[in-house]
């Protein structure tokens, strides 16, 4: 069945899109508002600001790819749509990081899980991080607005087997679990969300707010990497960027941008990196403190087929262990499922040769649970720190004893859940571990496991923090409204604003908070 590609249709209708990779000479752009990045924050802001009548220009380092490019193959998706071809890691290689790098940002390649900011997180920010005006009740209309805008509803279909295991295990054990809300419309339930939705059912920024902004006259400049922020006294004066080719390498063409107001929505790594490289004021050295929800994996083999590649990738989660000891207490973890595709599984499992081949041969019987550890809420979990390198950045994220302790607890919980749901064998993804056939064996193996850096598989798909919000300048770079504390015409609208991790998948939190803050900014700019 042929799918209509809304991006092709829009471009044919005259959208203003400049692919910087094809420019052959330097170029300057002017706008009322320039937005750097087109992910959850940039896309949301672009729609709101352009519909308020402002001349908006969006800059995206990645390319403009759309459903006709989304061929449901990892080998195409990772280099085309992910930061560093999905090979991004922390400096010590201990954590693999998945983040989008395409028009629509991570919303183009995420698994559609949409969860409101947990109340304990909002309370903690208000009490400990000087955040103001962002409470469950004050955000409710913004959550409702964005849920309606992006068709976010509870997934009412049967979960696939990969998620049914999570639900069934929780039911048997009496653990909390929730049916996930997803931002989809007319979903075909194929399971390839992580490679870009081939049927435009996922209500990502790519097919919702960005087309809306372009229809309202906004300009999109793709394959342009912003490299510098010029600033004088208390104002940004211009941005500089370089054009990039298909491989992300500079073409030699330089771009400059001027605007009344500038919005950084480049994500929780690149927004702080950009501010650091531009030497913007940071008297309390707050830029770059990053949170990842570092995530553990547990695989299980079932007698029946699981087909973890097929169907909505995530439709159930459990918060049984997230807040057990309160927000500032012992580290907690959220349980979710992860889709099973060949490269993802081959590279995020353990061993080589015959043992690995045997695991892969059971591919369609493999079920995967992940445990996402919430970080940033106490001294045991300070998160990571971005630093500049000659040409780029590095993220130092030491995995400390507190993390490894919670990792062992998480492995036990995941094994308990998988056996409760009927697993025949369970494998904790940490080098040296073997398949075990009972919970008793699993607990013994986990107690004695040689857990640690480069032994234990740790991944992240949620990069947060780096430019924290709050009213106290000793704790925050931007106000709770996203406005920079130091540069009057600069706002930060992306996941870098979070003062801690969320304890939940981030996209809906970004949508709602940015919708609130961008609406206030629009009112201010059109006065």
């Amino acid at each position, binding site marked *: *069945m*042929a*799918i209509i590609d809304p991006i092709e249709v829009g471009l044919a209708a005259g959208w203003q899109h400049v692919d910087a990779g094809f420019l052959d000479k330097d170029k300057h752009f002017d706008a009322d508002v320039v937005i750097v990045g087109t992910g959850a924050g940039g896309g949301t802001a672009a729609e709101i600001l352009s519909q308020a009548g402002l001349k908006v220009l969006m800059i995206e380092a990645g390319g403009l790819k759309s*459903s*006709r*490019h*989304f*061929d*449901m*193959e*990892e*080998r*195409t998706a*990772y*280099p*085309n749509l*992910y930061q*560093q*071809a*999905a*090979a*991004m*890691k922390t400096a*010590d*290689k201990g954590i*693999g990081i998945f983040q989008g790098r395409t028009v629509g940002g991570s919303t183009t390649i995420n698994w559609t899980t949409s969860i409101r900011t947990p109340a304990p997180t909002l309370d903690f920010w208000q009490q400990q991080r000087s955040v103001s005006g962002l409470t469950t009740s004050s955000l409710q209309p913004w959550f409702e607005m964005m849920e309606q805008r992006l068709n976010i509803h509870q997934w009412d279909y049967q979960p696939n087997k990969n998620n049914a295991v999570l639900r069934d295990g929780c039911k048997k054990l009496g653990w909390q679990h929730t049916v996930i809300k997803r931002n989809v419309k007319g979903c075909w339930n*194929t399971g*390839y969300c992580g490679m870009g939705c*081939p*049927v435009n059912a996922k209500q990502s920024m790519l097919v919702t707010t960005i087309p809306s902004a372009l229809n309202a006259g906004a300009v999109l400049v793709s394959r342009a990497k912003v490299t510098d922020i010029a600033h004088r006294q208390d104002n940004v004066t211009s941005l500089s960027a370089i054009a990039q080719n*298909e*491989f*992300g*390498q500079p073409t030699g063409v330089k771009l400059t941008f001027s605007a009344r107001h500038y919005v950084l929505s480049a994500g929780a790594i690149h927004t702080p990196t950009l501010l650091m490289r531009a030497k913007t004021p940071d008297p309390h050295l707050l830029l770059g403190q990053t949170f990842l929800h570092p995530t553990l994996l547990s695989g299980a083999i079932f007698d029946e087929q699981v087909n973890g*590649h097929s169907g909505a990738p995530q439709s159930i989660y459990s918060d049984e262990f997230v807040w057990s000891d309160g927000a500032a207490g012992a580290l907690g973890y959220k349980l979710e499922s992860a889709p099973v*595709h*060949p*490269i*993802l*599984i*081959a*590279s*995020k499992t353990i061993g*080589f*040769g*015959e043992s*690995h*081949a*045997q695991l*892969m*041969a059971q*591919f*369609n019987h493999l079920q995967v649970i992940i445990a996402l550890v919430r970080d940033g809420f106490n001294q045991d979990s300070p998160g990571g720190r971005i630093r500049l*390198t000659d*040409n*780029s950045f590095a993220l130092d994220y030491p995995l400390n004893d507190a993390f490894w302790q919670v990792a062992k607890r998480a492995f036990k919980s995941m094994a308990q859940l998988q056996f409760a749901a009927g697993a025949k064998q369970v494998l904790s993804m940490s*080098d040296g571990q073997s398949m075990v056939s009972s919970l008793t064996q699993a607990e013994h193996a986990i107690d004695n496991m040689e857990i640690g*850096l*480069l*032994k234990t598989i740790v991944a992240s798909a949620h990069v947060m923090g780096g430019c924290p919000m709050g009213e106290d300048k000793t704790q925050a770079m931007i106000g709770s409204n996203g406005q920079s504390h130091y540069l009057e015409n600069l706002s930060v609208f992306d996941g870098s604003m979070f003062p801690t991790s969320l304890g939940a998948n981030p996209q809906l939190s970004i949508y709602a908070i940015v919708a609130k803050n961008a609406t206030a900014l629009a009112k201010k700019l059109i006065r």
Partner: protein
Amino acid sequence: MNRRTFITGAFVSTAALAVGVNLSTSFTRQEHVQSSHRMLFATLIPIFLDGALPDVATHKEQAINRTLNTIEATINVLPQEQREEITLLLNMLESRFSLLLITGSLTPLILRQPFELIDMLESWRQHFITLLNTAYLGLREVIMASYYASPEHWGRLQYVKPTFVVGDN
């Protein structure tokens, strides 16, 4: 099997120390790498993928060649710093002096027996020196990911992507 039969074309310069992914065949090669690196990977692929590669010799050779091509493409899309890391690793694995330091033997990897290579990889995997752990993981990830990137290699997985969507690809 003659490992040199796998050296079928121009080769890119490095392998990913931190990789997990591959590039569409529609991408053009941007740079070429020493053929010695291709030989090195051709030596290691049968070790990492023992039990996964096809049993029939010609199919096995084709699978290894496809994997080598994918490794080449993978490296092309990595950021400069990662490419430099991989180049460093591969150069170390091809330098007799470095090999002596990290494996205790001057014998080039391409001349070693499979059991010797397995022992070497197991030693790196368990080693207390982080650099060796990283070398093992880097080679493992790029080889595993590059092999399983190809639909031709999904037969044993019984994994196929849906065919009901018609697009350009």
